[in-house]
Structures are given as C-alpha cells and as structure tokens.
C-alpha cells in the first residue's frame, strides 16, 4: 500500500468516525449526569432527515446542520422531561424515540419528496469539504468539541456538578445543586450532539437520506461510551478505531481479490462484529457513574 492510499484511508476514517464520536461525547455528558439515552439512533435519523429538508429549502447546508442539532436538542428536552422530571423509564423512552424515527423518517421522505425510501441530497445542500485536506469542517468541530467537553467536565464548576449528580444526586441536592436541571442540561447537550451527528450523516458524508441511514451508529456510539470509560478524549481515539473498521469494510469491497472471495454482504458485518468484540473485551475495565439510569427521587 502506498502513501496515497494510507492518506486516503485516514481521510475516509475522519468521516466514518465523526458521527460516532459526536454522539458518544454527547452521551458521555448525559451519562455522567446519570441519565441514559438509548434513543441516539433515532435522534440521528430524525435529525438527518430534518437537516436535508432545511438545507434544501434554504439552500444553506449550515442551516441544515443547525436544524439537525436543534431537533436533537428538542428530543433531548422530551427525554429529559420523562427521565428527569417525571422520573420515567429512560430505556423505554429511548426505545420509543428509536421506533418513532423508524416510522417518521420514511413517512417524511415520502411526504416531502414523493419517493419511497431514498432521497439524494442535491449538491447545493451539501456541506462543502475543506479545500486541500478534503475533510469535513464538522470533523474539526468534533475534535474541538471533544477537547472542550473534556475540559468542561473535568475543570469547571459545572462539570463537577454534572459528575456529582451522576454519582450521588442526593449529595448534590443537599448542597443546593438543582439535580433535575443539571441532568436536563446534560441530556439536551448529548441529544443535540447526536442531532449534529445525524445531520452530518445525511448532508455531509453520505449525501442521502434513507431509513437505514444511521445503520446502528447510535448504538455503536453507546458502545463507544463504554469503551472510552466515559472520557471524551478517549472517545475521540476510540472513535478512530471504530471508524477504521467502517472504512476498511468499504475498502475491502473494492479490492478485486477480496471481492472475489468474500461477498459484499458479509463485509458489511465487519463494523458490527468489531464493536461486539471490542466491547466484550473491554468491559469491566471501565467504571460507569454510580447512579446511572435511575431517576433521582427525593423522599
């Protein structure tokens, strides 16, 4: 393999890892505050859809990214209401979001573009790649977000509040931290990043919208959270690892020698198998926040 190929693989990996890392970092913040959102997949999908719609109508991809982020945040608000204020079941709420997306997105595609199942994003609605490097500006933003989030969690008063709430909400409550509010901020932040990830999928990387667009990435992001031991910088590194399997699968598909032996369908299983193996291998090394997934109820 020559240098050119390696550079190309690296370039494609930046694309493959971006949605995983964005969603994972968001979920890290959410989970650090003690809330689990397994609806990432659904948020990605819904935001991917709205991003295409807004970018096409306005002709402005940046507005598309913003729309995806805002929709994600909005779903985060709903999940927060249910999880943090009404003390509902976080898993079921997340499942509902995923199923909702599975219905709404194909419905929306047909309602808006009058086609069944698949719509291609026109060039003017696409996020332009950076010149020279030919990578997405969203990737750079992602790196920035990873660093900023890491700093925020570990070096600011608010970050300390978030971590306290996820570890021992009672202790935080007693000293005057508004537990529900902090959890809501963290949940909305996480959902917004998942929304941005979805928008990136449709109007940046894959230039299309289908009901299978997210292809399990929301759940891979959940695995990545675990793998990264709730550390945003490790999520960035781990995301690169996960992203490479995706890129590798695509590369293998176009290598004639491989194509002849291994059918394309089977190569498609690669990222999922890799996720399973990695997660199974790394569990137990990591340590989740102590009060994760349970609503905080005052007596």
């Amino acid at each position: 393999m020559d240098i050119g190929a390696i550079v190309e693989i690296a370039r494609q990996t930046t694309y493959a890892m971006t949605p995983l890392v964005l969603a994972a970092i968001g979920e890290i913040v959410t989970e650090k505050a003690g809330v689990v959102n397994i609806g990432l997949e659904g948020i990605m999908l819904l935001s991917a859809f709205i991003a295409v719609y807004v970018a096409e109508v306005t002709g402005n991809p940046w507005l598309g990214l913003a729309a995806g982020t805002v929709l994600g945040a909005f779903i985060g608000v709903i999940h927060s209401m249910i999880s943090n204020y009404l003390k509902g079941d976080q898993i079921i709420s997340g499942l509902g979001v995923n199923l909702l997306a599975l219905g709404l997105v194909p419905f929306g595609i047909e309602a808006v573009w009058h086609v069944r199942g698949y719509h291609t994003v026109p060039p003017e609605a696409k996020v332009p790649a950076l010149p020279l490097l030919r990578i997405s500006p969203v990737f750079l933003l992602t790196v920035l977000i990873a660093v900023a989030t890491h700093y925020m969690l570990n070096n600011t008063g608010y970050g300390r509040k978030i971590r306290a709430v996820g570890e021992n909400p009672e202790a935080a409550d007693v000293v005057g931290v508004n537990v529900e509010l902090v959890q809501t901020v963290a949940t909305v932040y996480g959902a917004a990043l998942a929304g941005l990830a979805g928008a990136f999928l449709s109007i940046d990387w894959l230039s299309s919208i289908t009901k299978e667009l997210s292809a399990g990435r929301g759940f891979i992001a959940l695995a990545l959270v675990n793998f990264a031991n709730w550390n945003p910088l490790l999520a960035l590194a781990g995301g690169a690892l996960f992203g490479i399997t995706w890129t590798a699968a695509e590369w293998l598909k176009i290598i004639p020698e491989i194509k002849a032996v291994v059918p394309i369908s089977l190569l498609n299983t690669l990222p999922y198998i890799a996720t399973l193996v990695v997660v199974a291998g790394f569990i137990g090394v990591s340590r989740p926040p102590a009060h994760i997934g349970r609503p905080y109820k005052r007596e």
Partner: protein
Amino acid sequence: MERQKLIESLYRFAEIMVALIAGFAISGVIMWLGGYDPIKAYRAMLGTSILTTDPYNLAMTLSFSAPIMFTAITFAVGVRAGVFNIGAEGQMYVGALGAVLVAAMSLPGPLYLPLAILFGSLLGALWGAIAGVLKAYKGVNEVVSTIMLNWIAFWVVEYTRVDLLPNPRDPSKTIEMPEPGRLPILLKGTELTASIVLAVVVTLLSYYLLWHTVLGYEIRATGMNPRAARYGGINPERAVLWSFIIGGIAAGLAGVCEIAGRPPHYAITTGLSNLFGYGFDGITVSLIGANHPLGIIPAAIFVGGLTAGARGMQIVAGVPLEMVKAVQGVIIIALAVPGLLRLLKTRLTRGGG
C-alpha cells in the same frame, strides 16, 4: 386484596388506553403537518383492520398479529429476567433463514414443517444465546449487543439470499418453502394461516413457563432482584441466559412462520422486506401488553391491526404506510411516563378549577 388487584389492573389498563390515545393524537398532528387528513387516515386504517366485520380484513389483522406475538414474547421474557432484549429482529431473521435452509433440502414432504420449526427455533435460540452469554458472563450491555447482532443477522441472511439460496425463478427472493411444508391457510384468499394458532399456543406456554415452572420462578426472581436470587440458590447468570434462549426460540418461530405461513412468497424477499420490523413491533406489543403473555395477545391483535390497516390508510388517504410505526413510537414514549393517568388528572383538575 383481590379487589385491590382488580383496581390496579383497571388502572393500568386505563393508563395504556391514555397512551394509545396520545399516540394517535400526536401522530395525527404530524400527519396533518405533512399535508394529510388524519381523520380520514385513521378511519381508513381502523375500518380496514379492527373496527370492521369484513372477514377478509379481520383475517389480515390476525395474520399480522402472529409474528409480533412471538417477538413480543421475546421482549417480555427478557424484561421478566431484567434485561432489555431488543434482538428479536435478528433472531427472527435467522429463524427464517433456518426455515429456508430446510426448504432447500430435498426431504419427504411431512418432514419439512417440523424440521423448519426445529431449525428455525434452534438458530433463533443460538442468536439469542450469543447476546445472553455476552450479557451474563461478560457484562456486555444487551441493548448494544442485540442491535449489533441484528445487523450482523441482516447481512448474513441477505448474503444467503443473494449468494447461497437464490430462487432460480425469481432472483428477488430465496428458495420457497415447498407445498407440503406450508402451514394451512385458515381463510381462503387471505394471508391468515395456522401461524396465529402457533403464536397463541406459544404465548400461553410462555405464561405457563413464567408462572408455573421453577425456571420461570427463577427467571422472575432474577429480574426483580438478582442478589436475592443468588441467595436463593439461583444462578442469576444462567437465568438471564435462559431468558435469551427462550426469547430466541420465540423470535426464531416468528421467522419460521413467515416462511412457512405467509402467502404468496413463502420465502425471504429482497432486503428482508417481508420480515423487516416485526422484531421491533414486538417491543411495542409487549409494552402495551404490560409485558405479560396474557396482555400480549390482545396487544398483538391491536398492533397487527395497525399493520393491516396501514395499507387501507395508504390507499384511501394516501398516507405512507410507515406512519403506523410513528404511532407506535409515540405510544411507547407515552408508556415510559409513570403514572400517566394520575398526571393527566391533576393537570386537568388544576386547569379546570
């Protein structure tokens, strides 16, 4: 005590009704935003599925409730063991694959069906057991692992469809289940086959298993308190694993029944289009049925009705089929809210007074 129990059940029932209404109402608004007439859509949907006397429509509703009854059992048994097994989708795929593998053999006629059932449920159980082992002995989050396994199953089955067992006469699907291996059609001209009978039997069996066998006792104890279960001489890991295996069998049977019991294809079609989604529908069914086998039967008929009625809705009101999934999503989100009814009541009385 009995009285209190009854009141509690009624309360739970009312709560589920509220969630259903919320599901329809919110989805109605979305339809309206999309430029459709929700009243017309719902009338067409329910009028061609549940609220009708037309035997054809009722038969179609029942036929669609069969697979999701199976997959609801998958989810419900998981919940009873304290896990969120959302892998029915993939377990159903491999179950269907098992049936197709049997269909591809040349066997004496009467052997097809029993072998398909055996193979399909075995493969389903195996697929479930992978997630089960990962959960019980490695601590891998089952939500993540089952979704990964769903995708792996999808591509593996898609691979067999394209490369291993394509139908020589129709490349868009696999080899068909031969005549003698098919489940009998219960109502001529409809898709209603003995699948529904099997589904109900398996659902009742799962009820018996959970509340009248030691294994069920141990599964439920584990789900409610794994530490107490271990104290009680139960191996909670093994109980969890069993729940995945039982769930996998149920989902595998869903797949088998779609191959052996759904005209006209009797095979897996392109992109698994004739299977896609039944696993996730099972989650809705289970949650609406309060994760109880006896609640699952009516819930499956209801959701089966949505699926059956979706066609009517599309023809009459032009609303895309998938809208019914959105309705389900909203229903589930509403079900996640505890004490929905109480909440509503205080809001209403506060607003009114």
